[in-house]
């Protein structure tokens, strides 16, 4: 446990060293939020309901999506691909008395919580300035279901990101793949708009992937868009996706370790 506390301390120190970059990352998230807020405000000027959302629900959706994007879809594990290719850096981890995946999960948690605190603070100020009241879950059970959905979403993203990074075992050209995957993932997760907006065929196809379980379903649970039964069903499917991605990641990782050549100094 002490080892991982040291990792927490070092990672947090790193966040503080690059505080300007860190602040800019938060500011960038806010710019997207401002665009979406004004877009939906304009859309709902002349109507009460659209895509099965009212104004309050859609505004809460975009605010919550911004917060969760900075919490769920944030991970340092994309660095793994680069480390696999860079002068034996990965090899140095194998010599340390520390679990590799546990190390990265600890690093991720520091990034996630520091990001969550700062983005929540910024959004709190923004809601006061814009005089926005966000919708709260109708009862406590929805809060619990929402938290469960988020915890699974974090783990899905963690293992999925490692899975993509494992490409680094075989090729140095991983950055392009990561760029493509993140773009598809963010749209399919509902980071920019609820999936209800998209044509039915596209929605159907996207809902067959694990991505909507990262943001779209957790937010739908929070907003009470799903019944208790539907919420539990969504959480169970998410858990199943987590298991599939976990097993797949372990399998590919094992294959990658056999192919790994620790060249470099």
């Amino acid at each position: 446990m002490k080892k991982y506390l040291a990792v927490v301390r070092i990672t947090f120190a790193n966040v503080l060293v690059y505080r300007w970059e860190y602040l800019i990352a938060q500011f960038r998230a806010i710019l997207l939020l401002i665009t979406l807020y004004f877009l939906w405000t304009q859309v709902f000027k002349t109507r009460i309901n659209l895509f099965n959302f009212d104004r309050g629900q859609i505004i809460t959706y975009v605010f919550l999506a911004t917060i969760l994007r900075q919490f769920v879809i944030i991970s340092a594990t994309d660095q793994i691909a680069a480390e696999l290719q860079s002068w034996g850096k990965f090899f140095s981890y194998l010599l340390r008395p520390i679990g590799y995946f546990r190390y990265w999960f600890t690093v991720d948690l520091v990034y996630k919580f520091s990001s969550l605190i700062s983005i929540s603070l910024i959004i709190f100020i923004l809601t006061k300035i814009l005089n926005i009241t966000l919708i709260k879950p109708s009862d406590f059970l929805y809060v619990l279901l929402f938290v469960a959905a988020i915890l699974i979403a974090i783990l899905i993203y963690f293992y999925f990101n490692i899975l993509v990074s494992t490409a680094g075992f075989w090729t140095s050209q991983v950055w392009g793949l990561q760029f493509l995957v993140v773009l598809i993932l963010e749209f399919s997760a509902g980071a920019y708009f609820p999936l209800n907006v998209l044509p039915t065929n596209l929605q159907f196809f996207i809902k067959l992937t694990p991505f909507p379980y990262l943001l779209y379903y957790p937010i739908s649970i929070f907003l009470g868009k799903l019944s208790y039964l539907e919420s539990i069903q969504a959480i169970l499917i998410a858990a199943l996706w987590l298991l599939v991605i976990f097993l797949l990641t372990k399998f590919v990782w094992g294959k990658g370790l056999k192919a790994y050549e620790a060249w470099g100094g």
Partner: protein
Amino acid sequence: MSNFKFSILKYCKVWLRLGKMRFQEYYIQSRLHSLFLISGKLVRFSFFFIFIIALLTKTQTLAGFSLYQTLLFFMTFNLIDITSQFFFRSAYAIGWMINKGEVDFILTQPINSLFRIISDNIDFLDLATLAPVIMVLGLVITRLQTPITSTNFILYILLCFNALLIAFSIHVAIIALSILTQEISSEIWIYRDLMTMTRFPIDIYSRSIQLVLTFLVPIAVMVSFPAKVLLEVLSWQWIILAFLIGAISFGVSIRFWHFALRKYSSIST
């Protein structure tokens, strides 16, 4: 006159040589990487395109603009954004160039330093996405209900060039700021995100945000103004102001660049 011609020819040759070098790097040595990058850009474009169509099919209008008019704003945004990335992508790597001593090396070369820095990373990958964007833009323009006069079309083209001038000025200012502070610049990403605010008509934003995006960081002048002139909803006073903003941005950024260059001291290893 012949000296001037020789100079232009020399700069064209250097630009093409640098472009060829990057082309080899991106396409020939990293084909898979290029394929993923192009696919990613097309995916992002397609998702937003589908989103706008899905939204406007239900709402009919956005801030008073019809589906094809809204798509004109989106396509103009893509045109300006991709073209400026194609020409000025080096601004993204300026921090790296300073730290690795690339800037020191460039300063010793017998060529305009700003030209050499800004042309260091010509991204031909952007051309692969620019071609479909121009085709779709053409299609959108033909579907507009507003009759397009030749005057409006010429003004649209001129304002697009003006947008590139402003984009150039912003990139130069960011490069100069990095030279001055000698830090890895993140300002370029703020510019990129501000730019994405103009995917939709500027009229959706509050008055204060519109003012900021017109006068402080003239992103609206770059994207919304050309689209509006084609739709005949921009007065001649705003058109003159747009060109004035372009000229002032250019003048100020060049002066800032010279100021930064005078203060530059090497930090590379």
